């Protein structure tokens, strides 16, 4: 790690770490889970990462991460680009609105917001699908199982994100807001 930090600035290393984490989450969800458990609904591993980056980054990096995650999502689905974009925007505004209600942002709050995002994203996306003229069916059971499974993994993922942030950027101003459990 030290050798790497000498070769590359910490910001770049942090960016690459989060990028790797997001790609790994997407591939774990689509490929590894599918290979091991088939069509059993899988936890949305990318949503906690999205929530963390949206709430712990300055405005410009936040927009870049938003677009980055959006484009990465599109590589793993046949979903409509516009519907996905609108769902992400709506989810972002919902979690941002809820976050503004909290005076501090602890890991517990992040877990709560990630859980909310896990509910709002599929619902907003379903709303987008419903608004089109194509046949629509919402897999309630699948989404519910996915949410339950997500709840088990969200804290670990958020801790990992925080660990990466602390490792590469100990002076992150947003990091001070995040309290220990």
């Amino acid at each position, binding site marked *: 790690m030290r050798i790497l930090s000498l070769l590359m600035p910490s910001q770049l290393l942090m960016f690459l770490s989060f990028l790797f984490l997001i790609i790994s989450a997407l591939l774990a969800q*689509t490929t590894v889970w*599918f290979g091991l458990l088939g069509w059993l609904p899988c936890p949305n591993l990318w949503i906690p990462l999205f929530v963390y980056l949206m709430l712990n980054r300055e405005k410009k990096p936040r927009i870049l991460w938003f677009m980055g995650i959006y484009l990465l999502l599109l590589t793993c689905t*046949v979903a409509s680009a516009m519907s996905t974009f609108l769902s992400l925007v709506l989810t972002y505004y919902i979690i941002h609105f809820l976050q503004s209600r909290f005076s501090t942002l602890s890991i517990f709050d992040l877990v709560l917001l990630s859980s909310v995002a896990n509910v709002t994203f599929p619902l907003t996306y379903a709303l987008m*699908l419903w608004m089109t003229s194509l*046949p629509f069916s919402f*897999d309630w059971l699948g989404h519910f199982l996915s949410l339950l499974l997500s709840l088990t993994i969200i804290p670990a993922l958020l801790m990992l994100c925080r660990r990466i942030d602390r490792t590469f950027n100990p002076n992150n101003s947003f990091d001070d807001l995040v309290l220990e459990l």
Partner: protein
Amino acid sequence: MQFFRLDFQKVFSIAAFFAVCGVIYTLQQAAEPSALPIAPTFLTAALQPSYNKAADMIGTTTRQYLDLLSLKEKMLQTQIENQTLKAQLLVMEEVRSENTRLKEIFKLHEAHPQFEFVVAKVTAKDLFTDHYSLTISKGSEDGIEKLSGVITGDGVVGYVVDVQDHSARLLLVTDRLISIDSTIQRTRGRGIISGQSKSESLLKFIDRPQDMAAGDVVVTSDDQRMFPIGYPVGNIVRVQVSPFGVGHTAIVKPSVDPKKLDEVIVLKAKK
């Protein structure tokens, strides 16, 4: 007087020597049944059967124990052999299953010579729960193109919507974004297949409700080059008559269960 002066040490030594010899002789004689009639033989004779039984028991138990040890070792060896044979059997089953699949593909190839077949392995599913697409292990390097039809021996799976060098994404027949020109085999009524949920599709835009009934087989239409003509898509489960008198629909159960897909066949039109 000097004559009677004896060296008692020597005398006792000689006496002791003869005594020992005598005892040895006596003992040797005692080995014979009637050597020493006063010996308490009845005591040993009474106890002997018990000791004999005990000796037998000890011997038997020891042998059984040794046999058990040997058996345990043999059992372990047998278990290992059993596991190996089971593993080999599984491999053989897999080979047999692959052989069956390849035979089906060969038959299909003979039946539809206008297509080249590319067999691909399913590697990933869609990220979103509401969409039904799969990623396969073959791409443009293997000659797969966008809108290539994808089938199995049982029926239509879907078609390719995105191609990379070594992978491709295919839209399943259950996805809401798919559209396949189809015909009802019995009545030749035509419609468009579109996905509805994870296990059902919709046959839309049927002109007349009398053209369709539950149980009818839906096949690919004659007027397209994506799939072989008349290839099974699914069976009608339920008919939904439109209140406006046009554009009737039917719920179709696809011939291929996407959950059981390991390999698919991508169709390439021969040039």
